C-alpha cells in the first residue's frame, strides 16, 4: 500500500526493454486498454540511427497480422518487401548451388506472400512513431531499471534516476542477457555456435522479384533476402575466426569475398552501407515466468538465424502474453497472478523449443562439407520438394500460422 502511494508513476504493466519485442508488447497492451510504461536504456535517437543495427527481420504472415492488429502495419507496409518465393540449395564455393533445389512458392499455400523482409531500423521507427499515438503508453528513455520488488499485491520498480513506478506486472524484454531474468534466478540452457553472422546490404542491377535464397555453404548458411527496390540483405554465416578476418578486411577485398558467394544472378552488385558482425548462440530459459514477471523474446530464447524465425517467435510471445493479460484484465482478474502467467508459458513453450531444436538441427545438418551427408541432405531437400503435404506444413510453419494461435496472430483484434 505504502509502495503504491509513494510511486511517481502508477501503471498496469511495466516493460523493461524498448527494443522491437518490448515496443510491440507495450503497444499490444495499450491497444487492449492498459496503462503501460516501457523502460529503455538507449535514447530514441540512437535506436533510430542507421548505424545502430543493420539487420533485417523476416516477418512471417502471422507476424504481419500482429503489427496490423496494433496499428503499425500501415506505417511499415511501404518498407516491407513481400517474399514470393524461397529457394533453398546446398552448395560449395567451387561448384555453386547444387541442382537439387527446394523451391517454396507462395502459390502452393494460398494467396498471401510467405512473409516480408523488413529492415530492423524501419520496424523500430514505426513502433516508436506508433507509441506516440497512445496516451496510456509511456516510453521512458534513456532510463534503466535499478531494482524490482515483486510482491503478492503488486510490484514496484526503482529506476537508476530514482523514480519509482508501481505496477501489477513486469515484463522482461531486456534481451539475451536479461538482467531481470538473472535477478529472478531463472537458469538458462546456453551454448555458442562457432559461427558469426556477417550482415550487410547489397544493391544489384536486376530485380529480385521477391525471391529469397538460402545457400548452404560448408561454413554456414548464406542468405540473400530481398529488400524494397533493387537491394538485398545478406546474412552470411561464417566460422568465427574467418568471420573476424572478413569483418576487418578493406572494402575492396571484402567485396571480392562477398561477390564469390553472392554470384551474378542479380547482375552487377555493389555494397551499400556498413557491415555488421553478430556472434551466434542458442539460449533457452528454464522458465519464462516468476512472481509478477514474464520474459519475452530474446530474454526467454535465442535461436540460430538459419530460418529467420527468431523475431517471429518473439512476436508470437507478445501476442500470447498480450491475450493472456488483456483477457484477465477485462475480467477484473489480477493480471500479474500465477494462472495468467502460466497460461502464457504453456502457450509458448512448445513452439519456442520446437523452433530452437529445428534450427539447431538444420544448422548442424548443413554447416559442414561431409560428402555422404551432402548427398543425403540434397536428396532430403528434393524429397520434401516432391511431397506437397510435407512442404505445405513447413511453409505454413514458416508463415507462423500453425497451432493454437493468439487472436493477434490470426488477424483478430486483441
Amino acid at each position, binding site marked *: 500500500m505504502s509502495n503504491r502511494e509513494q510511486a511517481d508513476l502508477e501503471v498496469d504493466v511495466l516493460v523493461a526493454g524498448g527494443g522491437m519485442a518490448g515496443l510491440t508488447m507495450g503497444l499490444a497492451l495499450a491497444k487492449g*486498454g492498459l496503462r503501460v510504461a516501457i523502460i529503455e536504456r538507449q535514447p530514441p535517437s540512437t535506436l533510430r540511427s542507421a548505424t545502430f543495427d543493420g539487420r533485417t527481420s523476416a516477418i512471417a504472415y502471422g507476424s504481419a497480422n500482429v503489427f496490423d492488429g496494433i496499428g503499425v502495419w500501415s506505417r511499415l507496409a511501404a518498407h516491407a518487401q513481400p517474399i514470393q518465393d524461397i529457394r533453398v540449395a546446398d552448395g560449395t564455393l567451387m561448384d555453386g548451388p547444387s541442382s537439387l533445389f527446394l523451391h517454396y512458392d507462395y502459390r502452393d499455400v494460398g494467396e498471401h506472400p510467405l512473409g516480408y523482409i523488413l529492415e530492423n531500423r524501419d520496424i523500430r521507427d514505426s513502433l516508436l512513431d506508433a507509441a506516440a499515438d497512445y496516451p496510456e503508453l509511456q516510453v521512458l528513455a534513456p532510463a534503466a531499471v535499478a531494482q524490482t520488488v515483486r510482491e503478492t499485491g*503488486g510490484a514496484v520498480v526503482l529506476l537508476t534516476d530514482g523514480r519509482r513506478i508501481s505496477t501489477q506486472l513486469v515484463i522482461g524484454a531486456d534481451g539475451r542477457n536479461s538482467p531481470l531474468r538473472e535477478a529472478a534466478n531463472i537458469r538458462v540452457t546456453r551454448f555458442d555456435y562457432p559461427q558469426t553472422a556477417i550482415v550487410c546490404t547489397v544493391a544489384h542491377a536486376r530485380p529480385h522479384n521477391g525471391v529469397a535464397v538460402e545457400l548452404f555453404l560448408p561454413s554456414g548458411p548464406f542468405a540473400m533476402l530481398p529488400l524494397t527496390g533493387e537491394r538485398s540483405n545478406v546474412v552470411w554465416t561464417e566460422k568465427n575466426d574467418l568471420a573476424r578476418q572478413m569483418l576487418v578486411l578493406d572494402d575492396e577485398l571484402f567485396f571480392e569475398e562477398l561477390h564469390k558467394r553472392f554470384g551474378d544472378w542479380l547482375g552487377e552488385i555493389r555494397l551499400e552501407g556498413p557491415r555488421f558482425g553478430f556472434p551466434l548462440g542458442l539460449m533457452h530459459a528454464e522458465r519464462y515466468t516468476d512472481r509478477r514477471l514474464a520474459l519475452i523474446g530474446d530474454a526467454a530464447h535465442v535461436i540460430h538465424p538459419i530460418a529467420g524465425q527468431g523475431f517471429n517467435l518473439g512476436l508470437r510471445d507478445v501476442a500470447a502474453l498480450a491475450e493472456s493479460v488483456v483477457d484477465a484484465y*477485462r475480467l*477484473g482478474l*489480477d493480471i500479474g497472478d*500465477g*494462472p495468467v502467467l502460466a497460461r502464457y508459458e504453456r502457450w509458448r513453450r512448445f513452439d519456442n523449443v520446437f523452433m530452437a531444436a529445428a534450427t539447431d538441427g538444420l544448422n548442424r545438418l548443413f554447416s559442414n562439407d561431409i560428402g555422404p551427408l551432402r548427398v543425403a541432405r540434397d536428396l532430403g531437400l528434393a524429397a520434401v520438394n516432391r511431397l506437397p503435404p510435407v512442404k505445405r506444413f513447413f511453409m505454413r510453419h514458416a508463415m507462423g500460422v500453425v497451432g493454437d494461435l493468439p487472436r493477434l496472430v490470426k488477424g483478430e483484434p486483441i
Partner: protein
Amino acid sequence: MTASNSSAQANTVDESEVAKFAAIAESWWDSEGPFRPLHQLNPTRLLYIRDRVAAQFGRDTTAPKPLNGLRILDIGCGGGLLCEPLSRLGAIVVGIDATDKNIHVAAQHAAQSGLAINYRNTTAEALFAAGKRFDVVLNMEVVEHVADVDAFLEASSGLVEDGGLMIAATLNRTLKSYALAIIGAEYLLRWLPRGTHDWKRFLRPSELAAGLRRGGLTVEEFTGVVFNPLSGKWSLDPRDLDVNYIGVAVKSA
C-alpha cells in the same frame, strides 16, 4: 425488522458448514491450494457474470471499468475471489460471509490489492431485514450450504433492486453430480476437501427456479458449467445442467 417477512428473517446459516470453511480460509488465494478448482472456474463464471450484468445495464464490456457504479452484493463471498475482480471492473462491492475468518482473509487481501471492498460478517437475511437493495446479487455456490433453502432464497431475492438481477449457481441433484462432484472431486481426485458438499442438499434447476419465483424474480435462463479434465478448462454448455449450473433471474423495474 419488518413483520411481513418473518420466515426470511430466521438465520438460515448452518454452523457446521461455517466451521468447515473456517478450517481452510487461509488458502483462499492460493491458486494451487485446496481452492484450485475454484480458481480454475473463476474466469468462466466471471465472464458470465460480467456479460450478463453488462447486458442488463447496457454496458460495453471492452470499455475500461464496464461495471462502473453498479452496486453488487456477493453472498458467501469466501476469500473474495469474485469481489476483487468485480471491484476492478468498477462495481461498488459488498461481500458477506457467515464465516468470520473468511471476512478477515478477504479484507486483508483486498487491502494488499489496493481495492475498496466492503466485507461484512453477516447474512442475507440480516441485510434484507435492514432494507438493503443491490443492482446485482450474486448467489454463487451458496444455496447448497444453507439450512433453510426457501427462507434463504426469499431473503436473497428480496435484496435485488427493481430492474436489477440475481446470478445464481449451484449443483444439480443427479446421479451424475453424485458421481462427479462427490465421489470424483472429493474422494478420488481430492480436488475438494472431503465433506465440502452434501449431495442431498443439491438443488434441481426446477427447485431453484421455484424458490426464486417465490422471491419475486423471473428466471431468464439456466446454463450448464462443465469441466473438461483433459484441457483443465471449464466452459458453459446450455445442454448439460447435470452437475454445475448457473443462471440469471431479474426483478422487473
